[in-house]
């Protein structure tokens, strides 16, 4: 039940975008695994005497993630939307559990994990695809939703981001915030409102930075890492040395030197630096090119998709995958302040891998439903769907399942 699940089944009947996206996701995943193999080998060898340790565990997570992937791809978005609210609330409560000192597992100073047997799961990572689903549901029907429900759901989202911030997990909170904002932007919400939200978000960030010394320190060291290359600027300096060492063609697969000692957390947050050193500028352009193709096919899906909620799911998914990758690259390349953020499909970590596979599956599912509609199902219009649903459920409108 691993890659075969990814390859088989009714894919031939899928729309062209869905098939393309699936292949690109597979390609992305395979490149990611290869890079993880190279990036994690020396550190796993040094720490555990088994260079393949992280790689093998990652394969396990990939297998688990592919089951989820397969499930999502084969499940109608309607059903997914229906369950997403509960899952979201469940995951939020798990995040709240991580905040409880007895249960939360602290790694590198942040309490983001819960122990699940021998493994650590990070609820805030797993939450992302469900957040996308719920956000799409809210913003996709924004005009029809009464003010009370809007405020309710917006405050739920704010609470989610706030709880993640409490962990503290600034980067995941930022990714969630940006994703929500971009979904809202794509939903067609008024620019003024979006500007106000963006402005207050930045304001909050400024207040936080002015209050917390270590955050200010991060910003300062990001602006000039060379001022203190041994301490506060260490991570970024080592990352820049790795990326710079790649030059045009890179040192070659497996031949990164920086990954051996110098680059910290080279198999998770700074995995891109290893990739950049081994494959050079050419490899970086190729990777960003892959992201661009991915985003562009997603754009075609979004443009083709008539359903106001589903298209926003696609927007959210592409922002989570491509946007987060770009943020990660930005951090590694010193274009953004240093913050811990996994690179989807590259970084070691089960929660991130499962979350990314589910997110990609959502995007592919949207591509399927909007593309196959024409030739297979004849996708019902939003109106028709509403009518049909209200008939089936005997209840009124979508407002009902937006209320908690």
């Amino acid at each position, binding site marked *: 039940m691993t890659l075969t699940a990814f390859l088989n089944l009714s894919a031939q009947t899928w729309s062209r975008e869905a098939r393309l996206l699936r292949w690109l996701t597979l390609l992305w995943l395979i490149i990611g695994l290869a890079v993880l193999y190279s990036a994690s080998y*020396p550190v796993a*060898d*040094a720490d555990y005497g088994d260079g393949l340790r992280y790689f093998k565990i990652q394969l396990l997570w990939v297998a688990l993630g592919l089951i989820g992937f397969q499930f999502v791809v084969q499940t109608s978005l309607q059903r997914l939307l229906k369950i997403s609210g509960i899952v979201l609330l469940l995951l939020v409560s798990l995040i709240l559990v991580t905040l409880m000192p007895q249960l939360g597992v*602290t790694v*590198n*100073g942040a309490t983001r994990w819960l122990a699940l047997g021998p493994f650590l799961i990070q609820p805030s990572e797993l939450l992302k695809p469900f957040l996308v689903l719920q956000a799409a549901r809210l913003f996709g029907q924004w*005009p029809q939703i009464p003010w009370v429900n809007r405020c309710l759901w917006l405050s739920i989202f704010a609470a989610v981001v706030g709880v993640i911030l409490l962990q503290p997990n600034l980067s995941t909170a930022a990714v969630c915030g940006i994703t929500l904002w*971009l979904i809202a*932007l*794509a939903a*067609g919400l008024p620019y003024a409102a979006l500007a106000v939200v963006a402005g207050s978000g930045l304001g909050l960030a400024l207040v936080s930075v002015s209050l917390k010394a*270590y955050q200010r320190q991060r910003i300062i060291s990001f602006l000039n890492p060379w001022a203190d290359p041994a*301490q*506060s600027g260490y991570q970024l300096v080592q990352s*820049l*040395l*790795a*990326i*710079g*060492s*790649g*030059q*045009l063609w890179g040192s070659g697969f497996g031949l990164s*030197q*920086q990954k*051996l*000692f*110098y680059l910290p957390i080279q198999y998770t947050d700074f995995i891109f630096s290893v990739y*950049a050193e081994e494959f*050079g*500028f050419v490899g*970086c*352009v190729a990777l*960003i090119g892959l*992201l*661009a193709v991915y*985003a*562009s096919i*997603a*754009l075609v899906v*979004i*443009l*083709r998709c*008539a359903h*106001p909620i589903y*298209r926003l799911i696609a*927007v959210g998914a*592409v*922002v989570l995958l*491509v*946007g987060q990758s*770009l943020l990660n*690259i*930005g951090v590694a*390349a*010193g*274009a953004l302040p240093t913050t811990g953020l996994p690179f989807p499909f590259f970084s070691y970590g089960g929660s991130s891998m499962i979350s990314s596979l589910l997110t990609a599956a959502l995007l592919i599912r949207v591509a399927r439903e909007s593309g196959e509609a024409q030739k297979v199902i004849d996708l019902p*219009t*939003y*109106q028709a769907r509403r009518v049909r649903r209200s008939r089936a459920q005997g209840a009124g409108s979508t407002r009902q399942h937006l209320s908690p």
Partner: protein
Amino acid sequence: MSLPPLAARSRRPVRKKARSQTKPRWRSGRYSLRFRALLVWGLLMLSMMGLTSRLAYVQLAQGSALAQMAQQQQQRRRQPVQARHSIVDRQGNVLAVDQVEYTLYVHPVLFDQSPAAIAAKLGPLLEQPAEQLVQQFASQETGIKVAETLSEELSNRILALGLNGLELIPNLRRFYPRGDLFSQIIGYVDVDGRGQAGLEYSLQDQLLLPQTTQSQPAARAVQEQSDLTALLAEDELTLHLTLDSRLQRTAQLSLRRQMETYGAKRGTVLVMDARDGAILAMAVEPTYDPNRYYEADVAAFRNWAVSDSYEPGSTFKPINMAIALASKAVNSDFTVYDEGRIQIGEWPIQNADYSAMGGRGTLSLTEVMKYSSNVGMVHLMEALAPEQYFDWLQRLKIDQLSGIELPAETIGQLKAREQFVSSRIEPATTAFGQGFALTPVQLLRLQATLANGGKLVTPHVVRGLSDRQKQLKWQPSRPQPEPLFDLETTQQVIAMMETVVTDGTGKPAQVPGYRLAGKTGTAQKALSGRYIDARITSFVGVLPVENPRYVVLAVVDEPWGDDAYGSTVAAPIVRSVIESLVATEGVPPSSASPDTSAAE
């Protein structure tokens, strides 16, 4: 503005509804959903372009500079300090040993207890006040260096606390338990693990433990760090020296005391077992503490006993005497007439005691030696043709390296053959030990020929690398000793030198119960070819006379004071060294030593 047919069809009712809700701009123009989707896509594309240009800047514009920096950093780390074999003296006392010591880093971000609680546990072990530690913990989130050079034992106790957020990084340090006592022989290892002086430098290849062979240099370093203790424990080999710590200490302390008394610039005391050239003690001043080499004066790194040559003066007279006898130019009954002062060309030559004693008249060879008569020596060496004399000087190998294992050895200086044979003054000055130069170690080696029956041995401080069963695994290759003088000659010269100690200038070196042969030296120093008002005093002693084996040479450079002579400055050093030597080596007292007992 054109929506795809499907979307247009499906949205028409919605739009109507929107209009009816007085939101006319909704989904049209730049408010259209299509435009918004393009906006999101465009933002992503824009970030990609931005990041690509940023990467182009980092990888292409700055790439070579960053790559160079990364390489430098990797070069530094790639060669971890390599373990070395221990060095021990002839009794097995450790003189240099690798130790694993730990640097304690603290990462407060990983603490699972309050900083105060951790400081309270750590403080007593580190002997630092807990409040100070708490302050340090607050300075940074991670990577605070709290303590260095922690012993293995202390590091184990810190580990036993079981605290999160502490990191102990092991590293190797070369430790010299005897401090400055052997630094001029052993040298030191710098912070990068490179031998920079002495045997640590010259025998680096033998001292370094073989590297574990692994393709990944960094992986090897990681492994070495974790296995350092095991690596050192498994090391079978030890470098054995010929030196004796107790003797070395006596030599160093006597030298230092005497140098302080006379305000001397530098000095050396050398003790050699003449039978094979093994050096038992080599005290050199000034010196330095190899554990704190970075604080030392650079000049102190120079072991001048091998690196600087000087004009030996009267201590060379026994060698000249042996040359005259061995070449059969004279026999032991030979006598010379000592005018006290002679003129050779434009150069006046006089005895040191001329103003007091005047000419001593006819002298036997023994008397020439006893009174250290310069004029007598000049006349004696006139018995040899200058060419013959020069050939002999060359056979002494003054202008060749002695072969000692120490680095930076210099050779002595002889005049050119043409100059020596054509100018009368050259053989004349050479006769009383001036006009040429050699290192203290070379002089020691020549004196040893008198003690060992005439062989030119190779001075050495290294016995070899041996395992725990004392099996020699490696030994420096040394040439066979070359015969220089015949036994009879050396015995005659030793007998003459004994009178120097019993009745002559060497009296201050007398050791009760032991028969000692010796010779003082007080030479004028030359600077840029002119003699200046500074002297270099020396004394060489050979014992026991009845069975000569040990040679002790003390040289003190530029002692101050009118009473600074070989007899007053250097001879007392030799006496205290010999007192220690006979004890450490178990030299039995001379059965018949009427002269010394008479002198008591």
